[in-house]
Each structure stands twice: as structure tokens, then as C-alpha cells.
């Protein structure tokens, strides 16, 4: 008597499993099921054998194809194409650059220099220094990027915090206004708070990730 069991896998899922197209979780469940199901295992073996047979058959040349003749035809077509290209003519050997207009360039350069000198003369000294510092910081920015340091320590009236690459470790005292916060250049910030009930002093310190 043929057993009909709703728990057996249908052919479409077995075919997908044989081709590794069922997906991770479904494959996991299917393999779990097949540990105890001889029928599904046999069916899967059959699907896999079919896949191998089809793959093997696809590697052979179709029947009736003469490879030598096919190769000669392709070579002939390429030669005809090259000959047709020569009839059309050669590519220009070099591109033509537009003629540089030295006169116009000189006028633009003179106007630019006039503007820069005028701007610099009329710029107040603090702003000029600020501009120079900003330009210097742009030039030295790659060096700062190479420094790789992204950690920051913060000690404020709201508490202390160590920040590193989008994460942070912080402490907020029970009475932030009364807490004493200090910074140590060794790489830590501390907050001192006093418990009103116990009279006990607690110093919490967070460190950078160095």
C-alpha cells in the first residue's frame, strides 16, 4: 500500500533543493526532514542525477556540426570585415586641440591678480589670518585623517563621556550641577559625586580607547 504523507516534500521543492536554489533556511529544514525520510532522499538523488546528466550532455557538440568548416567560415567573415574597413578610410592620426588664445588668458590672469591683491589689502588682519589658517588646515587634512584617531573625551556640566567610532560610554551624576568634572590628558575624564544619604564619595572615570 502506498503511504500518503502530507509531510513529504513535493517535486518542485526537491528540484529547487537539487539545484541549491531553495534558500538557506528552507534547505536546512529540507535536509533535517530527509534525515528520516528515505523516499524524499531517493527522489533528491534522482533529481541530482538528472542534473548531472543534463550538464554532461550540454558539454558535447550538437550532432551534425562540422567544426572545421565552421571555423573556416568565421575566419573568412573576419577578413571580409577588415577589408571593408580599409575602403572607408583611416582614423585621424591626432586630435586637433583648439587654438589657445594667449591674449584672453592674460586678461583673465591680470584681473584675477588684481582681485586677489585688492581683497587681501582690504581684508582685516584677523580675517586674513583666519583664511590662512583655514587654507593650511585644508592642506594638512590628509595628515589628520591618517592619524586615525576618532576618540573624544567630554567633561561638561551634564557629565562625562568617551566617544569612539560612533559608540560612547558615559556617566551622568545624580546631581550634574554639583558634580566635579576633571580631564586628564593621559586619556580620561572623571566626575566626582557625593551621595547625600550615605555621605560616600564616588569618582567615576571613563577612558578613551587607547
Amino acid at each position, binding site marked *: *500500500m502506498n*503511504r*500518503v*504523507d*502530507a509531510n513529504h516534500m513535493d517535486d518542485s521543492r526537491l528540484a529547487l533543493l537539487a539545484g541549491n536554489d531553495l534558500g538557506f*533556511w528552507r534547505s*536546512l*529544514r529540507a535536509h533535517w526532514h530527509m534525515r528520516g525520510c528515505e523516499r524524499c532522499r531517493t527522489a533528491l538523488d534522482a533529481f541530482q542525477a538528472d542534473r548531472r546528466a543534463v550538464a554532461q550532455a550540454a558539454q558535447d557538440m550538437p550532432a551534425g556540426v562540422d567544426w572545421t568548416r565552421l571555423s573556416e567560415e568565421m575566419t573568412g567573415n573576419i577578413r571580409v570585415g577588415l577589408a571593408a574597413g580599409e575602403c572607408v578610410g583611416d582614423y585621424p592620426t591626432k586630435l586637433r586641440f583648439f587654438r589657445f588664445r594667449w591674449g584672453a588668458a592674460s586678461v583673465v590672469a591680470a584681473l584675477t591678480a588684481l582681485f586677489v591683491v585688492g581683497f587681501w589689502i582690504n581684508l582685516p588682519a*584677523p580675517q586674513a*589670518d*583666519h583664511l*590662512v*589658517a*583655514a587654507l593650511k*588646515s585644508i592642506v594638512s587634512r590628509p595628515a*589628520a585623517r591618517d*592619524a586615525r*584617531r576618532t*576618540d*573624544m*573625551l*567630554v*567633561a*561638561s*556640566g551634564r557629565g562625562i563621556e*568617551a566617544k*569612539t*567610532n*560612533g*559608540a*560612547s*560610554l*558615559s*556617566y*551622568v551624576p545624580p546631581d550634574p550641577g554639583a558634580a*566635579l*568634572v*576633571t*580631564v*586628564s*590628558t*593621559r*586619556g580620561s*575624564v572623571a566626575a*566626582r559625586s*557625593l*551621595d*547625600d544619604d*550615605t*555621605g*560616600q*564619595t*564616588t*569618582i*567615576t*572615570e*571613563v*577612558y578613551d*580607547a*587607547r
Partner: protein
Amino acid sequence: MRGSNGHAASAASLRYRPTTRLTPRVLIMLLCVATAWAGVLPRVEFPRDSPVSLLSSDPAGSTEAIRGGASVVDVRVALVLRNSGQQRIRGVTLVVLAQDLAPGGKASVTVPSLNVGPGETFPVHVDLRLLRPYQPGDAVVQIGLDGVLFDDLAFYGPNRLNSRRALMVYELEARRDRQYLRALLDSGGPARLQQEMLADMSRRADATGIDVQMVHGRATNVDPERQVQFAFLALPDAPVDSPGAMAVVRGNEAVTPHLLVHNHSDREIRSVEIGWIMRDQQGREYMAGAVPADVRLAPGERREMTPDAVLRFSSRTGQPMSIAAMTGFVSNVEFADGHVWIPSRTSLENPRLAKVLAPSPEEDRLLQIYRRKGLKALVEELKKF
């Protein structure tokens, strides 16, 4: 063997059976929930031979919440520790490791000014917030011991956070301040002690704090750079002074000053900590921070402390504070033989120091006793040890 039982089984297999098995998806979800809950609970581990033992740990306030793409882990643990050694304990430092912040991400909780006898217990509260980009899995938070200081200044612990020096400084400051206040009490009676307490309260009320941000090795301010002479406040009994110092300032940012330190004592020095006072354009002075350095200094030797950090100052309202001048002073020195030097009370009477220096943890505690319990309680406290 298949007989009637075999037929019964076949018939049963034809009936609809609702699936009650735990699918892998359900199992994984349950596992995630379990690990998320377990992740909030910090692990507390002390060495076997530790002079303090864990009596109880209440992590009831520890929670983890997901906010947008981030996870916020509040580590709130109330620990009760017992002095399981034979000596009185004066201070304890616990280390809190939060590896999810970054490799080495850590914090510490120090309780100075203790007076815990053998067998006695004391509470320690750990209250930290870890914010990290959301990732499934647990936040590993471990609490351990970094150091214990006893009443004879002996130290126990791995000292990875240099807690020995810090606990020693707190204890020596406590002894200095208690001795000073007891001397006032002996010479002028409770009225003189009260007068000192009122002066302390007035100093604290006048003190204003600043916000400080610190980064290592880079400046972000584009204001013009200028060299500022770093003045040095000579304390009469300090074993170290600085013949020359210079700092680079850009707007409200200052690079750690170049300091030339000179050991004029007859003992080898292991580390020096320089206090840093900042003056703004309005002439107000603030305690900017501490510049500690592990510099081996033989007697008579001079060595340069190299800058490594950039500090950015702003007022408590968030306004950038332009730096006008800076001053340094030796706040403590650790000798190679383990002894620690701190400024005397006479040195601290320097008006500039008195204005910006915060009271020691012990003086702060005594001040609170006076404020909350009155002069009589303070006198009793001073007579205890």
C-alpha cells in the same frame, strides 16, 4: 511486528496534525532574546585572594533599549562589598570593561575616603551608559577589581588603571586635610572650625566650571595659531619645577603644553602630574585639567614632557572660551620607591590656587557632614581617626 499497531500508525499518519515542533527560526529567536537579556547583566569577578569580596550584586536597574539604529545599555549595579582582609580599607577602585565600545573601552569607579574595618561592608554603585550602533548579540560588560588601599598605605590589585597613585593621592590629601582641620579645632575650638567650613562653602559657591573636550593628536579649530607662554606656579615644597613651558593656542583650543620638568629632589621620580589653570579673555581663571606623565627623572635630571592632546574649552552655556593665558603647578609626584608627594596646606593657600582648586574628596565629605548634620557631627567625625 507490524500487525494492528502498524495499521493504527498508518491511520494516524493520515490525520491532520498541527505542527508543534520548534522550528529553527523560533529557536534562534528564543536564543536572541535570551542573549539580549543576559547581555545587560554585567559579570562581577574578583581575584580569589582579593581582600574585598562580593556580598551581593543588584543589577535591577540595568536595561538595554533600541533607539533607531543604536542600542543604549544602562549598566546600573548596586554592589555590596565586604572587607575580607585583616586591615582597614581606605579606598577601592573597580574597573568596568565595556568591550563593545572599542577594544579597550573602559571605565572605573573609585571610592576614596573609606574607613572600613575587617568584616565590615560598604556599598559601591556603578552607573554607566553604553551607547553603540545596534548589533545583535550581547553587550559584554565586566566589573573587576583594580586596586585596594589600606590604612598603612599598602596596596593590593593589578593596578592596570594606575589606581595606586590615585588612591594614594586621595588618602594623603584626606590625612592632610583632617590634620589641618583637627589643628584648627584644637587651637581655636569649634568656632574656628566653623569659620573654615563657611569659608570653604563660600569658595565652592564662587567656583564656576567649564566644559572641556579632549582629542588626541589633532586640532580642528581653524583660528590662527599662536604661542602662549605657559607660566609656572612655584610651590615652595614641590620636588619638581619647570624652568620653561610653551603652549600652542588656536581660539578656544589648546595643545598640551611643552613642559621642561626638573627634579630638584634627591630621589628618583616615576611620574609627575601638572595641574593646568586656564585664564579667559575676561581674566577669569578655571581649572582646565591635569597633565600626568610617566617620566623617569633621576635626581637633578631635566626632561621634556611632550604634548599629545588638544583641549577645547567652552562655557557651561556652550559658548567657546578664548584662551588668554595658562598657568601650571605640580599637583602630585610619585617617586620610584612608591612614595607620593602632594602640595601642603600652606601651598594651597596661594590665592590663585585656592580660587580654582576643588577641595579634596575628604574635605568635600567633611563639608557635607557639616552642612547636613551640623558642627557637632563634624567634630565627632574628626575625632574618629
